[in-house]
């Protein structure tokens, strides 16, 4: 297993005339949780979709657990757990049926399917609604179902697109606790709008704007950039400064 479980080099993606991602390099080692930040439309979701193989980059390479995603997509995807934005799922299925489907698609058979589903359900505290149809779940439980399918096969790499979006404070706390625990022996990329989440969970922060990286460092290094005198919403201040400066340069 390589040192960097996630390694992306020179990722670029355009949609027609719009350049969504303009050359992003990322590497995340085992034991690290990378907070992926940026304003809406900065290219976060597009980058994550390229990292998971949903979108093909125009240029650049992605390696997941040492496997080239372009050369061996199935091998790379087996080592990856992904929570897409909005945690989409099959609404007409029951939680356990949905998790069993993802388990079978990942190659588990027989009693191992039930064991994996049981373990994933327990891990994200889905027991109260394990037999419920997904379309009838609350937003919080729906997101937990999405996280459960991403964890089910115990992947070394997790990519979570806004895992706490729309959750209440208790649910956010639980998900952050879970991500911290999982991050001890995995490589995790987590996109978020909430800067306090970066401080609470991440070991590293990356900020992108207009498809380019404008900051890469630890949450402490990010905090150190806050000008003297700013006492409230410190990270929000530096986030605005970084993304606004980049926007002015572009203009």
């Amino acid at each position, binding site marked *: 297993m390589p040192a960097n479980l996630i390694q992306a080099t020179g990722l670029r993606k355009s949609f027609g005339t719009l350049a969504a991602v303009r050359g992003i390099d990322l590497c995340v080692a085992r034991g690290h949780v990378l907070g992926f930040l940026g304003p809406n439309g900065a290219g976060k979701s597009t980058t994550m979709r390229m990292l998971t193989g949903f979108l093909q980059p125009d240029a650049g390479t992605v390696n997941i657990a040492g496997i080239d995603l372009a050369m061996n*997509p199935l091998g790379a995807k087996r080592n990856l757990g992904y929570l897409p934005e909005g945690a989409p799922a099959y609404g007409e299925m029951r939680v356990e049926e949905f998790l069993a489907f993802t388990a079978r698609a990942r190659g*588990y058979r027989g009693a191992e399917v039930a064991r994996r589903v049981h373990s994933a359900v327990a891990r994200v505290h889905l027991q109260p609604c394990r037999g419920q149809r997904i379309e009838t779940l609350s937003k919080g439980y729906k997101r937990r179902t999405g996280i459960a399918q991403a964890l089910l096969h*115990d992947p070394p790499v997790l990519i979570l697109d806004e895992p706490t979006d729309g959750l209440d404070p208790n649910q956010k706390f639980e998900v952050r606790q879970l991500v911290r625990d999982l991050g001890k022996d995995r490589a995790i990329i987590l996109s978020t709008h909430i800067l306090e989440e970066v401080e609470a969970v991440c070991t590293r922060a990356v900020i992108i704007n207009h498809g380019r990286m404008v900051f890469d460092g630890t949450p402490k290094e990010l905090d150190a950039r806050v000008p003297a005198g700013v006492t409230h919403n410190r990270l929000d201040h530096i986030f605005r400064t970084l993304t606004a400066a980049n926007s002015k340069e572009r203009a």
Partner: protein
Amino acid sequence: MSGARDRSSHSDGGKMPEQAARNSFGPPSTPSALARVISVFRREFATYFATPVAAVFIVMFVAIAALLSFQMAGLYTRGQADLRAFFQWQPWLGMLFMPALGMRLWSDERRSGSIELLMTLPLTTRDMVLGKFLAAWAFACVALLLTTPLWITIAWLGEPDHGVILAGYLATAMLFATLLSVSVCLSACTRNSVVAFVLSVAACFVLLLTGFSIVQDFFAQWSSKWVIESLASMSAMTHFNGLTRGVFDARDVLYPLSVVFALLWVNVLLLDWRGSQ
């Protein structure tokens, strides 16, 4: 990254990545292509029965098939111990019912965003297309099988040629596969199920209609015999009629197989192309 990436064309990779993939995490081995197709098939097939789709589809299909056979084609009043009155309506029933089955297969995935989840599972596009198509076709075959009481009744009332009736059922199953492949392919072009349905009905109508004399007569006025024969051979109706008469011609079997294969292949290409956009 090279633009030559094709989700469908990659099997399970070479030895080196395989070994790298085997680690303390994840499944111990890559499932076979068949196992991957079955996992998609199971989910899709079960979905029909998890919603009212199965009950509504089967009841309406069997009821309309019986109604058309008895009321419009005089199944019993013809005085013939055969099911020709039943089979002659199957292309038109298929033209409406197969798009109803196929319309949501990809458009719903795209509308709900679940396609992102499906495409990032360790499955190839080929596994997904094949699993979804086979589930819809198996469901259509279940509906068709539920019309066999007609066969039993005819066998009880007279002495039909069972070989011809069996050939009729097989021809109908193959016709349904052809029409379904049109619908599944068009479903990948839009995120709106209604648009997929209307486009599919229109495409199926054209595919059936080119075999009719009214269309061939129209072309006969100004085109060569070669054009008319080509049109007739492209029609699903021509090959369906050949088989339901109980006359075995290899071309009538090869036609649906090749149309299904070609359209599923186009479906894979469409989905892979969308992944690169």
